[in-house]
């Protein structure tokens, strides 16, 4: 286990209470803005101090409130990539890199700076000031500067959110390529679930400062366990739910009783289904819900249909369905729509 975090910190408006473990490779820390993601990274790097808890990287304790251990950031060997990259504005690209090689012998420093400038395609930019660089170049410079310190772990704070959508994709590919041979844990903080799905093998979900444990990314997106996880995976359809004795589920907001295939462990409070899992049909039957069309928005290859459900107008009663163009005849120009909710696609949530 290369990262172990278990910290508590009072942040005034809410409490940070984060506990997870992460192995080598990319680990996502996913949550909406202002939920304490950056603060968690800052605590690991040592520029903020938790009120209580324990932080361990590669078997070395960096912070332990009970044992009175609190290493200064300089001794933690943790690389933190700031959201705004934090390049020193009074120095050129090369000078920025050389700030961290001052302890090395001259020829060693030269060699490693040259190697990184080359690897990050920054040779032509060595004498530029940070403000003269593009967002991607600034990020590469910051990353090169961090890698020169040979960190045992890398923390990336929203590395892509400062870039426009054109650069984003390019930078994401570069980032994955550059960090492919990084041996330790890389923690990626983001509010973008697609980034997590594409880049991370494991993920922890942070909700108002609270996070427990890590999930496999595949699991979180395919089999969420709580409503919060379900919402983070991008699900827009959910309803308060009640298990019935015959194993079926009564979805209160939707006003229907549904068959489910998932076996249930523990209590069920909600049921959810992804927009693209709703299937238009023209027959009646089990798990087919008859809905009133409210709005229809055409997209390039599909249409988004918002419908009412038999549940009336209380709570989260609407369906948000993404319907394929191939089944156009089943949804086009209709006021009434039959939607099939496949039992194996229904998610039972705590």
């Amino acid at each position, binding site marked *: 286990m290369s990262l172990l975090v278990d910290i508590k910190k009072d942040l005034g408006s809410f409490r940070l209470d984060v506990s997870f473990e992460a192995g080598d490779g990319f680990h996502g820390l996913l949550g909406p803005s202002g939920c304490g993601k950056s603060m968690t990274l800052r605590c690991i790097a040592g520029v903020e101090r938790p009120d209580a808890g324990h932080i361990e990287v590669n078997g070395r304790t960096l912070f332990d409130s009970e044992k009175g251990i609190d290493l200064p950031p300089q001794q933690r060997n943790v690389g933190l990539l700031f959201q705004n990259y*934090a390049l020193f504005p009074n120095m050129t690209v090369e000078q920025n890199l050389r700030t961290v090689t001052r302890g090395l012998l001259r020829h060693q420093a030269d060699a490693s700076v040259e190697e990184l400038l080359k690897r990050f395609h920054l040779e032509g930019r060595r004498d530029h000031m940070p403000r003269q660089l593009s967002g991607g170049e600034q990020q590469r410079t910051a990353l090169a500067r961090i890698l020169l310190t040979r960190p045992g772990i890398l923390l990336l704070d929203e590395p892509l959110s400062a870039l426009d959508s054109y650069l984003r994709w390019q930078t994401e590919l570069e980032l994955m390529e550059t960090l492919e041979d990084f041996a330790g844990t890389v923690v990626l903080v983001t509010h973008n679930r697609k980034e997590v799905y594409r880049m991370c093998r494991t993920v922890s979900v942070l909700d108002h400062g609270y996070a427990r444990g890590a999930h496999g990314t595949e699991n979180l997106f395919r089999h969420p366990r709580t409503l919060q996880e379900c919402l983070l995976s991008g699900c827009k359809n959910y309803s308060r739910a009640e298990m019935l004795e015959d194993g079926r589920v009564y979805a209160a907001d939707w006003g229907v009783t549904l068959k489910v295939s998932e076996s249930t462990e523990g209590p069920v409070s909600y049921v959810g289904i992804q927009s693209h899992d709703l299937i238009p049909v023209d027959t009646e039957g089990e798990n087919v819900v008859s809905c009133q069309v409210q709005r229809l928005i055409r997209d390039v290859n599909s249409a988004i249909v918002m419908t009412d459900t038999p549940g009336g107008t209380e709570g989260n009663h609407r369906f948000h369905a993404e319907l394929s163009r191939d089944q156009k005849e089943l949804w086009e120009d209709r006021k009434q729509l039959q939607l099939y909710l496949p039992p194996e696609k229904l998610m039972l949530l705590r």
Partner: protein
Amino acid sequence: MDLYPFWNSLRIAAISCGIVFFLGILCAHYVAKLPRVLKGILDVILTLPLVLPPTVVGYLLLCLLGPNRVFGSWMMSAFHTRMTMVWYSAVFASAIVAFPLMYRTARGAFESFDSNLRDSARTLGLSNTYIFWRIQMPCCRQGILAGTVLAFARALGEYGATSMVAGYTPGRTATISTTVYQLWRTNNEALAFRWVMINIAISFVVLMAVNLLERREKKGVRA
């Protein structure tokens, strides 16, 4: 024309500006780190000389430095050194009056310094001394320079406290500002006018310098 007041004023302003430069930066650096309540109280105390009438500062200084007062009499008996009515008495007066200008501009510059730069430098293993001198100070250079120029100008123009602790002795403690008053009082208007023009010229140059610095700073941000 005896130029002694000119040189004396420059000497006093330069020395007190030098003292205030280091003291102001030091206080700004440490006060910025204090908890909020203590910071508020210290901030008020350190800024007080800016709003107090210079005569009040002069009065308080005399209470400390006067030949019959605690510090003044001790200096007298220990080093046979007078603390009042000599040219360097004016250094104390102008340093105290100019201090808040340096302190406040330096603090403003430090507060607008992006603390992420400091944090990131620490995670990169750089020492706090290196961070302060090689990153924070260069980033705040314009603000600190502006503060220094302002403090110098204020020290140069100090009259009230100076006239109380250093008095006016031609060729000994006379500064430009005390000379102007003395010449006016003795109906030597022609000479007083010359000193007034000299003073205006110096202030003009100083303020031009501040403006140039500020413009360069803005340009730097935009580029």
